[in-house]
């Protein structure tokens, strides 16, 4: 009798530990790359067949484009961005002292574009700015995402996390509903990913366009039948901050290929 009881208790412990272990496993960040088919992975890895490289090339043109004062991005950042601290590029969004808010890579580029090149700033998330962002992030390819949210960014991170877990629209879903609970399961023919941001801006096989992260948020909101926030709005920037920090330790894959 005691033997049976010991076995039952041990089995219960084992099940509990296994459950705990599987929960920790589920929280390990996993790039969208791992949910792609072999042929799509091949397409992403080969720069000649990756259609996202078109945006990188277009962005490179902007990088050498003369501003109103005759300067180019390359004057400060070097030919092919050689003066960039590539590791720092993987830290975005970073805290900006002057504006007291998180600064996304796009905002930083736009800030330089206006302040140092004397240009009229881009509209947030317009095609040209996304191309330039794609190019700059491409330069930091293979760097590990490393967003520090312990300091002044903490409250913005918490807001982003709250948004991530908030249900929206007539369909009444949150980002977490799919990407935290059901990653790996199939939604019709499509495998749900963890919704990591390390590949963005990414080339989308569905639309045939390079889409920024805020563009992707807009698509998700529309499919929830919810009114999306504006691109570049504080809400989406907080969400971007949360997502990037959530994907810390993943490698940047821009321009990735996603469904």
């Amino acid at each position, binding site marked *: 009798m005691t033997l049976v009881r010991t076995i039952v208790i041990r089995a219960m412990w084992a099940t509990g530990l296994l459950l705990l272990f599987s929960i920790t496993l589920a929280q390990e960040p996993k790039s969208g790359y791992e949910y792609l088919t072999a042929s799509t992975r091949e397409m992403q890895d080969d720069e000649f067949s990756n259609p996202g490289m078109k945006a990188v090339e277009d962005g490179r043109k902007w990088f050498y484009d003369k501003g109103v004062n005759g300067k180019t991005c390359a004057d400060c950042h070097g030919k092919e961005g050689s003066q960039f601290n590539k590791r720092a590029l993987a830290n975005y969004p970073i805290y900006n002292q002057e504006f007291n808010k998180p600064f996304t890579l796009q905002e930083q580029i736009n800030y330089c574009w206006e302040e140092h090149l004397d240009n009229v700033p881009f509209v947030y998330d317009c095609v040209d700015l996304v191309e330039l962002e794609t190019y700059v992030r491409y330069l930091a390819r293979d760097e590990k995402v490393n967003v520090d949210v312990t300091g002044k960014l903490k409250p913005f991170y918490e807001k982003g996390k709250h948004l991530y877990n908030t249900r929206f629209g*007539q369909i*009444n879903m949150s980002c977490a509903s799919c990407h935290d609970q059901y990653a790996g399961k199939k939604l019709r023919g499509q495998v749900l990913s963890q919704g990591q941001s390390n590949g963005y801006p990414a080339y989308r096989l569905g639309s045939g366009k390079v889409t920024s992260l805020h563009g992707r948020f807009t698509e998700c909101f529309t499919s929830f039948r919810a009114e999306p926030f504006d691109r570049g709005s504080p809400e989406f920037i907080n969400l971007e901050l949360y997502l990037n920090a959530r994907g810390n330790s993943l490698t940047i894959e821009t321009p990735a290929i996603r469904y």
Partner: protein
Amino acid sequence: MFNFPISQCLRKPRFIFLLGCLVFSLPLAAEKYYQWEPRDFAIEKPLGGLKGNLVRGRKLVAQRDKGNCLACHAMPIKEEAFHGTVGPPLHDIGSRLTAGQLRFRIVNQAGINPLTVMPVFYRNPINVNRISDEYIGKTILTAQEVEDVVTYLMTLKQEVSR
């Protein structure tokens, strides 16, 4: 009693604005919403006393902009490829649940599991967060469509090996 004579009200721009809002919001409320009351996790009475139709229900569960049940659930509908795996398969749902229980799950699955990913197909439209303009005042399925789907699901009594 009348502190605000009509003639005085009409001179107030705020009043005119509110009146305008009321008039223009009338067509939005055209779709009738029937209140429902669950008991023991079931809604025994059909919504609005409507009668469901099997053929329409079978069509609705596959329709992507309507029920779209196939997105998450596998069902015995062979002509449609790629059934989802998010939710449980529904091949024998008609023998596992009663019509009332099914109705409550379609109308408000979140009332059973607050963490569910399943949309609330028939909730009071005023309780939606940031709904897009196109869908203001509308439920995902109409009361008639809910009944059609319930009627179809009740016919699924296939034996499945688990």
